[in-house]
């Protein structure tokens, strides 16, 4: 209950004499005027201000040796809030007071996420903004708005330099990690240039693309020729790297039609290199002797963290484990590194209308950021955590404090005490706190039962009285029936610490993120000096 958090006299810790009714019992004293005699909320708030006042700002260009940019794909503000509460509740607390790791970073701004041609954006356009400093069209990877999506001929002169490319030229180490396919829009924008995000392997190229010389995204990763090359690439997406005649250790065929095995090309191309395909070989990877690591842990996207297994051919490392190993490989370079890490499957779980998996993947991102915070210093590392866009995911109703975030709403009674029964809608039916404005809606498979399967789209209200809405398979209700829940257009947070982090302030265009990084690490100037 909330009471225990509210009523904590600070008299003892402050060394004040506890006497009379001057407020040391947690209220403002009998005359109501002793505003210095306060409760825990007051003290905590005061402490946070003191901390903020103590933050030193390093405005010097190039003060950041290292850059780490985390992107939670689809991690809008409501997702951060709900994940924070779920994380706290999984630890046995009420939840609302909890903080995800990155919520403790000192600087925060909001990013306007729209694409050049889209009020609500996609990951290709948004990541291009973050890694190149230039906004572009939906579906386009690190090429400017002059291109026509899917048209290779239109890409002449439209390529944009990315922060990863600049860092490589400057002699820094670089890494790209994702729980999605590494050829998927967000990671791909870091190293590839394409008028179509779907051109992940050569099998996806159109005849026009082939005729006009456009290359698929996986091939571009291998052809990357800046500096010492990309040092670490980890995630899913094995199928775009191996031929369609080749079967991977999980029994899946590749997609490539050109017969190339890009995994063996990777180890042939680089000295001190490694290719790993499961968690066991990932763990065996020695960062002190590895300078170029390619890890492809799934044929397609890696599993949701909630479903992830760790052993055998299908075993996958966590995002936190990939983050730790990557930093260990990259930090050997005295010139520093740029590392981009995507939690790519928050987006997919939301599209499926499955809040539990979206929130668990957000918590996995929080753990990865915690690892990065532990392994680096705010003195020389600019750490940023943001999202590419939001989702139509809401936290609604008047649930009482500590009400399970994935549960049915139980409100407070007229005296402010937690109600015993569920809150109900106008038709007398209970409802969940979290839900979606559109999408597939409730999965009409209330009690499971292994005789039943089916894929209904079911918008609107359902009787949830006998439904375990907190089960990870629960499929939240939606208003507008769509095959897939959609992205949302509101702003997303940018959390930051380290040199240059203070430049994250106010509501900014999303491409601002590149310019903060560029200022903090002096990427363009360093790259020009190296040429």
């Amino acid at each position, binding site marked *: 209950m909330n009471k225990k958090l509210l009523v904590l006299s600070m008299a003892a810790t402050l060394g004040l004499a506890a006497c009379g009714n001057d407020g040391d019992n947690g209220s403002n004293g009998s005359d109501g005027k002793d505003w210095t005699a306060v409760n825990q909320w007051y003290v905590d708030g005061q402490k946070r201000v003191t901390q903020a006042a103590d933050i030193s700002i390093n405005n010097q260009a190039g003060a950041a040796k290292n850059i780490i940019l985390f992107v939670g794909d689809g991690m809008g503000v409501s997702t951060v809030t709900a994940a924070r509460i779920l994380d706290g509740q999984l630890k046995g607390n009420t939840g609302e007071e909890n903080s995800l790791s990155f919520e403790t970073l000192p600087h925060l701004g909001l990013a306007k996420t729209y694409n050049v041609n889209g009020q609500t954006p996609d990951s290709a356009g948004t990541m291009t903004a973050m890694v190149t400093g230039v906004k572009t069209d939906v579906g386009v990877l690190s090429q400017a708005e002059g291109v026509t999506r899917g048209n290779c001929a239109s890409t002449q002169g439209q390529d944009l330099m990315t922060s990863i490319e600049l860092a490589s030229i400057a002699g820094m180490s670089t890494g790209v990690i994702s729980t999605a396919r590494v050829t998927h829009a967000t990671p791909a924008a870091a190293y590839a240039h394409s008028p179509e995000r779907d051109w992940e392997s050569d099998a996806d190229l159109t005849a026009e693309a082939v005729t006009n010389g456009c290359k698929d995204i996986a091939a571009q990763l291998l052809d990357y020729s800046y500096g010492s090359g990309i040092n670490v690439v980890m995630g899913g997406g094995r199928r775009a790297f191996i031929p369609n005649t080749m079967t991977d250790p999980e029994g899946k065929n590749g997609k490539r039609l050109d017969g190339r095995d890009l995994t063996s090309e990777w180890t042939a191309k680089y000295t001190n290199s490694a290719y790993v395909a499961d968690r066991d070989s990932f763990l065996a990877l020695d960062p002190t002797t590895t300078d170029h690591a390619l890890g492809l842990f799934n044929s397609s996207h890696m599993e949701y963290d909630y479903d992830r297994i760790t052993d055998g051919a299908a075993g996958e490392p966590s995002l936190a484990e990939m983050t730790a190993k990557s930093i260990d490989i990259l930090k050997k370079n005295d010139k520093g590194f740029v590392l981009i890490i995507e939690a790519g499957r928050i987006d997919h779980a939301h599209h*499926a209308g499955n809040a539990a998996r979206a929130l668990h993947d957000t918590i996995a991102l929080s753990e990865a950021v915690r690892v990065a915070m532990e392994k680096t210093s705010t003195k020389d590392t600019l750490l940023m955590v943001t999202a590419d866009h939001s989702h139509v995911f809401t936290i609604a109703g008047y649930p009482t404090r500590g009400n399970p975030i994935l549960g049915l709403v139980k409100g407070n009674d007229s005296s402010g005490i937690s109600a015993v029964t569920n809150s109900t809608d106008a038709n007398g039916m209970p409802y969940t706190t979290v839900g979606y404005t559109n999408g597939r809606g409730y999965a*009409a*498979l209330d009690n499971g*039962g292994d005789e039943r399967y089916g894929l209904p789209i079911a918008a609107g209200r359902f009787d949830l009285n006998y439904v375990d809405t907190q089960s990870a398979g629960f499929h939240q209700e939606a208003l507008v029936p769509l095959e897939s829940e*959609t992205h949302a257009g509101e702003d997303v947070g940018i959390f930051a610490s380290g040199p240059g982090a203070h430049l994250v302030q106010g509501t900014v265009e999303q491409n601002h993120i590149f310019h903060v990084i560029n200022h903090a690490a002096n990427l363009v100037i360093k790259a020009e000096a190296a040429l």
Partner: protein
Amino acid sequence: MKYSLLSAALLVGFVQVVSAHSTSVLSTSEQSTSVSAEQAQQPRSIEPATKLELVCTGVMPHQLSATYEVSQTRGVHVTKHQLQLTRYQDTAIYQRSPQSFEAWQHNGEYVRYFPMDKRSVSYRPSDLLSLNISYDLEQVFHLVSPQIRSKLKQADNIQHTCLTVESFRGELKGQEVSLQWATSLDLPYQLTIGQGDQQLTYQLAEVKPVTQADFKALTTGYKDIDFADVGDSESDPFIAKMITQGFIQHGSSGFYTSDGQQITGNGHSSHSH
């Protein structure tokens, strides 16, 4: 409540089965090698028809295509449709309508095929979990899971020159279940589930062997997309169409014709009163 029958093989213990709709004869159901058991339907009246000899000589349980007549009775209201189950090695394919069919693999992967668009959508086990979709692969491959069978009482076997049909009977979740199990096919010969005046019957009508070439012809040439990527593919015309039509299954009946017209639950041509 809405239930999709597109993928519901057999809903044991589940009375309110929505009418499934089949608007055309399934494409591969009339080949010369096929065996018709249509005239030998009533339990205990199976004739040792010479046609059934083919079942013994030409059909292997992991390479077959079985056609079932599915009829559902609610009082005087009878709904009929056809189900074709194709089993080839690790894959089981269910065809109920010309608009789409579905394939299950032993590793838990599930693919929905849309023949008119030559497109398919692949779901992996975690996708199905995220959709709160549970399934029993044994049931998918055999229509009736061994677990269900083990809960029934075995009655007399019906022995043929070439086909043994085991007879089971019992009550499951308050419903009378009667099962005639064709052991060499690893499939039901006949299955009836009922309660009161409601009854659901699966009757094997035809079975034929499936070659690797047959199987390949059924599933190749489709442009596939992961279910996880559907949400980011709204600019794909097929996905855009599916978003509008809800993959042929949202709305009150859950079924659409090829041009997007919703097929309503009542007055459908396959109903007889």
